């Protein structure tokens, strides 16, 4: 049975000529890629569901505590002041995606994107259990409303809503932690309206997306699919149809026919409604369903698999293949730059922040034959435990001394402390401005931060050579 509508390259299958939606009822598919994708998807779902539960260093493995502006990532705690690292995270993920895409095409879409993972391996599974395979689902959709259809729709949508609620709650758990989430779930909605409304809206969006919107997100909204044409080239691994081997199409055994028997299996399993034999298309999410479908057909007809396969455009055209391309070098170098900067950034993040400014007034004071500079040191404790910080000044010129560093400073958890710091040098030893360093250390908490300050004074013969 051919699909009711045959896809072409000039229109989007899921949009009819009048703008209404053409729903897809992809057929079942079995095979090595389907199995591998099922396993990797279940692993990814497990990771998503478990991360908020696994404690690392006293916090959930991933806990983006927006309320306290503390972000816990696998034991690393970042404060709002460290938000600049986000630049490296986002650009790093960007370049990584560029590299993966240049090498493997839309591997992300087909294997790891939450849209595909949840849609193919949760929502479509539910649909399959409740309404049957593609043909049965289409028949059911076309049938008039009756008790059976209503019952199935009710069961299916109830299951969708339950799953959507789960996804939304887990999402919130990343931001408030599981205990707080549980407290809100068991409390009255009126006591935390914001969270309640958020969950209601998020559930609604997730439900709408996976129950109705589906491939429209990939085809029309997601910018990544649209970027393919600039990210991939002839040597990118994509899913393609070997036209040289398959054409001309014809029933098995027909004279001069290629390997494609025109059974349209690849079209009927496609979740985006395209015909892969028409070449690489923007809609294709690289789910490999058509690969498994065709391999099965090839096995039945006693032909080698791989008429539809993972290959590059060059490979499908029987041209020499290349893996290493200039674009990969450029992406990798940029990624390396970013990763180096980010590593340096993460390593230079300290649980205590030290800054210093000059106190208001003159840059320096001359008093009783002494040159004096006054600074205000600010210590911010970014951790949940108190820090006992000792200030220490190094690199002073002979004859210079510091005041204000005698006592240890108790900085409360997530609090800040200010201390004046005064550097004095007698006129007789003063030989011009110099730089020195201030250190703040708390060995118990692993704090050791420093910064450089300038000691200023009157001009001397030596200071302007």
């Amino acid at each position: 049975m051919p699909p009711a509508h045959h896809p072409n390259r000039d229109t989007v299958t899921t949009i009819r000529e009048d703008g209404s939606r053409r729903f897809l009822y992809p057929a079942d598919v079995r095979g090595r890629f389907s199995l591998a994708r099922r396993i990797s998807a279940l692993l990814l779902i497990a990771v998503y569901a478990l991360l908020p539960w696994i404690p690392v260093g006293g916090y959930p493995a991933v806990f983006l505590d927006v309320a306290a502006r503390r972000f816990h990532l696998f034991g690393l705690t970042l404060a709002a002041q460290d938000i600049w690292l986000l630049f490296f995270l986002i650009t790093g993920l960007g370049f990584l995606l560029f590299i993966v895409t240049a090498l493997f095409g839309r591997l992300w879409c087909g294997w790891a994107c939450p849209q595909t993972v949840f849609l193919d391996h949760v929502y479509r599974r539910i649909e399959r259990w409740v309404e049957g395979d593609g043909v049965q689902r289409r028949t059911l959709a076309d049938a008039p409303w009756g008790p059976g259809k209503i019952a199935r729709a009710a069961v299916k949508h109830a299951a969708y809503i339950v799953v959507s609620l789960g996804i939304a709650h887990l999402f919130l758990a990343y931001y408030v932690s599981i205990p707080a989430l549980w407290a809100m779930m068991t409390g009255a909605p009126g006591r935390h309206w914001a969270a309640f409304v958020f969950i209601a809206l998020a559930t609604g969006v997730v439900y709408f997306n996976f129950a109705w919107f589906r491939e429209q997100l990939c085809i029309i909204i997601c910018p990544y699919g649209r970027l393919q044409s600039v990210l991939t080239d002839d040597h990118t691994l994509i899913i393609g149809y070997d036209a040289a081997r398959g054409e001309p199409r014809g029933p098995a055994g027909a004279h001069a026919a290629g390997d494609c028997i025109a059974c349209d299996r690849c079209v009927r399993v496609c979740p985006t409604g395209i015909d892969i034999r028409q070449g690489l298309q923007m809609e294709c999410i690289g789910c490999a369903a058509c690969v498994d479908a065709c391999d099965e057909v090839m096995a039945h007809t006693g032909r080698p698999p791989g008429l539809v396969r993972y290959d590059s455009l060059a490979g499908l055209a029987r041209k020499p293949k290349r893996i290493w391309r200039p674009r990969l070098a450029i992406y990798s170098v940029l990624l390396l730059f970013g990763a180096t900067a980010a590593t340096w950034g993460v390593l230079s993040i300290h649980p205590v922040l030290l800054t210093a400014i000059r106190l208001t007034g003159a840059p320096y004071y001359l008093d009783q034959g002494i040159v004096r500079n006054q600074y205000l040191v600010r210590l911010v404790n970014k951790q949940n435990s108190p820090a006992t910080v000792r200030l220490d000044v190094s690199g002073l010129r002979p004859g210079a001394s510091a005041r204000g560093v005698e006592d240890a400073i108790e900085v409360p958890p997530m609090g800040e402390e200010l201390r004046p710091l005064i550097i004095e040098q007698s006129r007789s030893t003063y030989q011009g401005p110099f730089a020195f360093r201030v250190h703040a250390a708390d060995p118990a908490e692993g704090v050791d931060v420093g910064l450089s300050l300038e000691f200023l004074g009157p001009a001397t013969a030596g200071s302007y050579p």
Partner: protein
Amino acid sequence: MTDPKKTHPSDTDIRPHTFDGIQEFNHRLPNWWLFTLYGAVVFWLCYWSYYQWFHEGPDDRHRIQAELVQVEAAKLAAMASSHLDNASLWAMSRNPVIVASGRKTFEANCTPCHLASLRGRSENKLAIGPDLTVRIWIHGGHPIDLYHTVTQGVPAKGMPTWGPILGPRRITEAVAYVLSHHQEGEPIIDAATLPPGSK
């Protein structure tokens, strides 16, 4: 049903313009997309009529006004609760809780110059700040003068402007702590009234 072999819909589907050799089909948008536009129009109608036609919602001017009134109220409340004058500063200097917090502020910020004993140059000739325990006051002879000196600083001599750094509450407490080393009614001499050279 579209003919499976037909890859190009009729040429009339193609719009007349060509840019860089690229032509466009004249296809309809998905209906759901159009609905987002209609939805936006409906939202605009509601929003615009709520705020602009019927002035039901507060506009920016009213909101700022309301917030300014709040700020003003908070300021007035703060002034009413800690009305600062010589008498209230003296009273605070006898309150052990206020004096204890003032001491913390003093020790964190003032001791590098005035020393923990408050005796400054009387204790150590090389100290930076003057003695705060003697009865000759350099910048005015009343507690409220002390408060202003701390808040505004004496930039010429190196006394920082503490107002923006510590804020009124902590400054008041620190002043109360300094005053706790004095007695109300003790003869205080304003240094400015002394003949030059007699200090």
